[in-house]
């Protein structure tokens, strides 16, 4: 998400950057002292993790936009994707870039802070202020590293529910998310069916596919193959496995796009040169673009956190938690669903969304589903795709009416 995004969603670097080391102090400040609100959970409120560990103490960093109304009926929880964070609609404290979902959240947007109380928290295991492997382990005084317990998507949602309790909110008007955020949104309805009025699940699935697990494993192996990774103890030495993490990001980034989008944006064009150099320089624009994506990512993300969060997605399988019957997970729910997929998304293809919709239909849930035509790939959910924004807006609007929410004054 770094760099200058154009309408196609692809960023073009000015020149090919060299991969560089990140000073540890650049990273650690947001990890322990985030530039956002923080909820602290002490020894009396441990987070019960799926792996059997009670995590305590821990903290959740979050942002809010808008005001909670008197009857607390206008709260919307946004769940971020793998490398996202709580900075949905404000300037990012590390990169200085605009919020990552300003196409959907903001004045005049489907999620308008004038109407909704919008909450977004950094997931547990993240590196932007919620407790994760980059945080200090209070028991040792050192960075957690691989001593941090393995977390799952249900764990992320459990932590969010504790935050929502902490904010004094019983029922969320909506839970909204794309990709890993969509997985969390679905898990919310599965775990707390009565606490979610409407669910907007975008470009996601009810389980991680074998191909997606394979891509994640590729990324993790790239991180672990970096000598600076040092079995996750790089924090003690003040280094960061930036080369491995950059390669992981480059590989992952390809899966977020599409063949058509890459061809449209870069084709076989050369970067700042007319002829091939007959070397392994970034001759092609697409190479330069990928290197830029890799190097800018390591400036804002912790390598161990990347391992943990990809693992959480791999383990996600709603049907697996319900004797293999997906519809059983949604039995009797009253939440309104809107499921959206994108035609060129090959990471979470439409077939995955259809499987979800069929299960929801089979459990008599109230569900709308739209497949949006675009060549922008999985990343389309983060971009200005008017048809998607319209659908999301229409769904939230009608759900808002059903919930009895008033339109923003003066709007």
């Amino acid at each position, binding site marked *: 998400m770094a760099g200058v995004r154009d309408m196609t969603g692809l960023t073009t670097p000015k020149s090919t950057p060299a991969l560089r080391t990140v000073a540890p102090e650049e990273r650690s400040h947001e990890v322990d002292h985030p530039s956002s609100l923080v909820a602290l959970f002490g020894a009396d409120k441990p987070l019960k993790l799926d792996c059997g560990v009670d995590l305590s103490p821990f903290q959740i960093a979050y942002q809010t936009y808008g005001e909670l109304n008197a009857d607390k009926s206008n709260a919307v929880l946004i769940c971020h994707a793998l490398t996202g964070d709580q900075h949905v609609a404000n300037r990012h404290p590390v990169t200085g870039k605009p919020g990552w979902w300003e196409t959907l959240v903001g004045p005049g947007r489907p999620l308008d802070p004038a109407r909704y109380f919008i909450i977004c928290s950094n997931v547990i295991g993240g590196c932007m202020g919620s407790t994760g492997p980059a945080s200090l382990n209070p028991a040792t005084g050192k960075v957690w590293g691989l001593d941090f317990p393995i977390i799952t998507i249900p764990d992320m949602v459990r932590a969010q529910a504790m935050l929502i309790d902490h904010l004094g909110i019983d029922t969320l008007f909506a839970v909204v998310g794309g990709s890993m955020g969509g997985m969390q949104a679905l898990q919310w309805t599965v775990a707390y069916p009565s606490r979610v009025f409407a669910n907007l699940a975008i470009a996601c699935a009810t389980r991680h596919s074998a191909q997606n697990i394979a891509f994640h494993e590729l990324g993790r192996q790239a991180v672990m193959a970096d000598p600076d990774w040092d079995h996750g103890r790089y924090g003690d030495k003040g280094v960061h496995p930036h080369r491995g993490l950059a390669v992981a990001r480059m590989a992952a980034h390809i899966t977020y796009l599409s063949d058509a989008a890459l061809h449209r944006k870069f084709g076989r064009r050369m970067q700042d040169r007319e002829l091939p150099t007959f070397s392994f320089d970034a001759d092609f624009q697409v190479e330069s673009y990928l290197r830029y994506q890799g190097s800018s990512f390591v400036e804002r993300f912790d390598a161990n956190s990347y391992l943990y969060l990809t693992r959480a997605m791999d383990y996600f399988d709603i049907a697996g938690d319900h004797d293999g019957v997906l519809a059983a997970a949604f039995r009797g729910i009253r939440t*309104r669903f*809107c*499921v959206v997929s994108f035609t060129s998304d090959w990471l979470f293809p439409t077939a995955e969304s*259809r499987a979800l*919709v*069929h299960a929801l*239909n*089979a459990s*008599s849930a*109230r*569900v*709308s*589903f*739209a*497949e*949006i*035509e675009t060549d922008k790939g999985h990343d389309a959910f983060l971009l200005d795709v008017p*048809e998607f924004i*319209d*659908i999301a807006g*229409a*769904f939230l*609007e*009608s*759900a808002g*009416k*059903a919930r009895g929410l008033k339109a923003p004054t003066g709007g």
Partner: protein
Amino acid sequence: MSMQGVLPLSGFSGGERLAYRPDHLLVASMVERGSKVLDIGCGDGDLLQLLESRGIDGRGIELSREGVNHCVAKGLAVVQGDADTDLNDYPDDAFDYVILSQTLQATRRPKTVLENLLRIGRRAIVTFPNFGFWRLRLQLLVGGHMPRTDNLPFTWYDTPNIHFCTIKDFVQLCDEIGVKMERAVALDSYGRPLRVAMPWWFWNMFGEQGVFLLSRAEKGR
């Protein structure tokens, strides 16, 4: 058997009569309040909206993205899908009624679709353009070209309607697959029920649309 005669559109307010198409009002009058309905090919969601306003729990399937967008904007639960391919994924007895309005003639396998309707729903309501309507017959007989009317404006080479049938053909299909016809109504060019009790050939000649309420044939029949 002859078609049932007059089906008075009772139970609708004057406002409803103005706001909704007569064939939609007719279909809505066949659905019991409080039941659960799947409308296949629900278009812009007008019929679903009418049904929901009558206390019916409605769901829709629509092929076009535009249609889905309109429906979602109206707060309707509509999924994008295809009657030919997606009905197999619905469980048995999921709905009280399944409605197929002006869509049967555009499906690739109308017989399979019809069988699916009565698997998913206890009852089905099917409406379709009657290709035996006298104007269509006349155009083919006298004009010698594929018929086109206000309700069927497409040229033969770009029409979505690939499986036209007459009321007579449809009745035969229902007999063939053992479907029970509970009600049958023919509509005129304005979508109003023909108000005369007449034999089948008359409906097949003067009805522009057929509207059928179907149920599963009882076992041993």
